[in-house]
C-alpha cells in the first residue's frame, strides 16, 4: 500500500507534470490505413515529420490506424496525453477530427485532403488536378502510340480528380489521344495490391498504351514494374518515385504532403499556426512534376519548356483545369 501522504505527493507531482506537458509544444501525427511506409502518400507525411524532428530535435508521437474506430480513439488519446498539435493524414479522418476537435478545443488539428470547419482545425488540400494535368501533358508528349493509361487505386472522388486532370492534360497536347482508365478495386485493399496493378498496366500496354500514370499508393509499384518490364514509361504519384526505375519513370505527380506536415509543426512551434482552409497548388509549390537526375534523360528540353509554360499558364489562370466534384 502507498501511504496517504505519499499518494498525495504523487498526485501533486503528476499534476505538475501534466501542467508542464500541456504548456510544452508536443506534435503528433496520425497516419491512415496505408501506413507510414507506403512509399507514397503516408510516407511523404512521415518524411515531413521526420525532417522536422531532425531539424529541431523535437520528438513527435505517431500512430498508424488499422480500423475506423481507432482514428477517434488515437486522436483523443494523443490530446489527453498532452499533444498540442495533431496532424491527421488523409480524408478518411475528417469525421474523427471533427469529433475530437470539438472535444479538445485547446488542441490544434491539421487535416490533410479534407475540410473540417472548426476554429481549431486547419484544412490542407492540394490541387492534384494541376500536377495531374502536367503529367498528362508529359505522357501525351512522350507517347509514340497516342495512347496513354491511368491506373487508380480505390475508386473514390479523390482518385477521379487525378484521372480527370490527367486526361485533360493529355488532350491539351494531343486532342486525339486515347486515355485508358482503370481503377484497381473498390476496397481499401486496392491501395496495396501491386500484383493487380501490374496486371492492369499490362492489359493497358496490350491495348497500345506506352505511358501509364498511377495514383494507387502501394499498388502503383506493380504498375511501374510492369511498365519497366515491357520497356514502356510510367508516371509516379505523391512521393517523387523517379528513383525506383531510373529511365523508365517519366516523372512523378508530386504532392508535397511532407511540406504541409513540416509547416504545420513549425508554424505551431513558432506560434504562427492558423486555422482555416489552406489550398496548395502549383503556385504554392504544393504539387508539381518531378525532374531530377533519374528522369533527366526521358524528359526532353522541349517537353520541359512546354511543361513549364503550361505550369505558368495554370498559375496565371490562362489554362483552366477542371476539378472533379463529387455531385
Amino acid at each position: 500500500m502507498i501511504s496517504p501522504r505519499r499518494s498525495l505527493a504523487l498526485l501533486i507531482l503528476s499534476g505538475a507534470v501534466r501542467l508542464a506537458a500541456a504548456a510544452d509544444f508536443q506534435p503528433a501525427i496520425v497516419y491512415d490505413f496505408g501506413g507510414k511506409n507506403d512509399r507514397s502518400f503516408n510516407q511523404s507525411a512521415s518524411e515531413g515529420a521526420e525532417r522536422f524532428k531532425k531539424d529541431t530535435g523535437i520528438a513527435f508521437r505517431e500512430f498508424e490506424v488499422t480500423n475506423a474506430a481507432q482514428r477517434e480513439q488515437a486522436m483523443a488519446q494523443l490530446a489527453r496525453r498532452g499533444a498540442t498539435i495533431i496532424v491527421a493524414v488523409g480524408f478518411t479522418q475528417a469525421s474523427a477530427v471533427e469529433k475530437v476537435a470539438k472535444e479538445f478545443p485547446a488542441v490544434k488539428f491539421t487535416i490533410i485532403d479534407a475540410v473540417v470547419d472548426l476554429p481549431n482545425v486547419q484544412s490542407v488540400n492540394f490541387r492534384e488536378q494541376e500536377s495531374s494535368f502536367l503529367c498528362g501533358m508529359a505522357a501525351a508528349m512522350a507517347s509514340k502510340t497516342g495512347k496513354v493509361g491511368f491506373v487508380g487505386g480505390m475508386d473514390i472522388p479523390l482518385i477521379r480528380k487525378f484521372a480527370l486532370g490527367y486526361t485533360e492534360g493529355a488532350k491539351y497536347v494531343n486532342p486525339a489521344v486515347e486515355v485508358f482508365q482503370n481503377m484497381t478495386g473498390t476496397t481499401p485493399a486496392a491501395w496495396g495490391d501491386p500484383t493487380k496493378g501490374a496486371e492492369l498496366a499490362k492489359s493497358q500496354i496490350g491495348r497500345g498504351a506506352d505511358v501509364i500514370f498511377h495514383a494507387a499508393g502501394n499498388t502503383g509499384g506493380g504498375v511501374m514494374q510492369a511498365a519497366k518490364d515491357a520497356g514502356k514509361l510510367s508516371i509516379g504519384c505523391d512521393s517523387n518515385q523517379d528513383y525506383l526505375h531510373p529511365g523508365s519513370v517519366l516523372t512523378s505527380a508530386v504532392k508535397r504532403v511532407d511540406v504541409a506536415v513540416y509547416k504545420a509543426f513549425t508554424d505551431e512551434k513558432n506560434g504562427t499556426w492558423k486555422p482555416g482552409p489552406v489550398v496548395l497548388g502549383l503556385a504554392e509549390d504544393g504539387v508539381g512534376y518531378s525532374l531530377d537526375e533519374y528522369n533527366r534523360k526521358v524528359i526532353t528540353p522541349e517537353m520541359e519548356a512546354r511543361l513549364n509554360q503550361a505550369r505558368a499558364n495554370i498559375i496565371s489562370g490562362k489554362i483552366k483545369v477542371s476539378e472533379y466534384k463529387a455531385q
Partner: protein
Amino acid sequence: MSAPAKLPRWAELGLLPAINLVAALLLSGVVVRILGENPWSAFKLLASGAFGSQDSIGYTLYYATNFIFTGLAVAVAYHAGLFNIGAEGQAYIGGLGTGLVCLWLGAAPFWVVFPLAVLAGAVFGAAWAFIPAWLQARRGSHIVITTIMFNFIASALMTYLLVNVLIKPGQQSPESREFAPGAFMPPIHELLGRVGIAFTATPFNFAFVLALVAAALVWLFIWRTRWGYALRVAGENAAAAVYAGISPPRITIGAMLLSGALAGGLGLNELMGAQHRLLLDFPGGAGFVGIAVALMGRNHPVGIVLAAVLFGALYQGGSQLSFDMPKINRDMVVVIQGLVILLCGAMENLFRGPLAALLRRRDVP
C-alpha cells in the same frame, strides 16, 4: 488419423484453451524480445490497455460486440455443416439496411427507428446470405467459394453506393451524412449515468446487450428447438437427415438466412453505436475474425462471447501497445493476434494428447 484424445469436460473447456492461450502469449513474447522490447512490460501494456481503465474496457467490449455477432453467424452455419466465410459481406450489406433506415427515419424517436433498424439489418444480411445458400442448396455451388465472392460483390456495391449515391455532397470522403440523434444507439456510459454510475465516454453501447441476447437466442434455437435439432442432424450427417425426413437443402437455406441475419447485427454496433453514418469498410475484417472467434469458442454461444471478448481485448490492448511501444508497430500487433488464432484455433489439439496422458496418469496410478 486417430480420434482426438478424450479429456474431462473441465479440461476440455477450461484448461486446454488456457494452455493454448498461454503458449500463444509466450511465443509472442519471443517475438517482442527479438524486436528488442521487454516481453513482460509489453504483456502488462497489452493487458492494462485492454482492461486497465473504464476507457479501455469500453473499447474492448465495443470491439467484442462486433465479434459476437459475426462469431454467432459463423457458428450457426457451422452447426448445419456449412462454412460461411461471407459474414464480412453479410455484415456490410446488413449495415446498409440499418444505415438506410437510420438515414430515412432519422428524425423519428429512437423507439421507432430501433426496431426497424434491427429488422432491416437482419433482412439485408439474410438476403445477402440467401443467394450463396440457394446456389449451394439447388445448384451445388460450394458455399465457401460463393460466400467469398459475395464479400467482394458487397464491397463493390457499397463503394458504388457511397461514392455515387449516398455520399454527402461537397466532400471527398465517401461517407453518408450523419444520422439524426434518434438513430443513435444509447451508449453504455449514458445508460449507466442515468442510474448514477459514472463511466467514461466510449463507443461501448447498447448493441452489446443485443449481442448477448442474440447469443442466448442462438443457444435456445440450436439446443432447445426442433429446427435447431434438424439443423444439427443435417450438419452431422446429411444422409441420416434425409432418412429422418429432414430436407438438407432447406436446412442449408434456413441456416444461412439466420447466419446472415446475425452478421447484419454488426451495423447496430458499428453504425448506430459508434460511427453514426454509413461509411466504407465499416465491418473492418470483423467477419473474418468471427471465424476465429467461432472456432475458438467451439461454436457454443458462451464460448463465442468469451472468445469475442478475448479478441476485443487483443484489438484494444494491441492498439495501446503500438501506441506506447513505437517499436511494436501495427503489423506486429497483427502477428500477435495471428499467433493466438494459430494456437487456439488451427492447432488447438497440439497439447491435447500430452494433457490427456498427464491426466490419465494422475487418475490411474
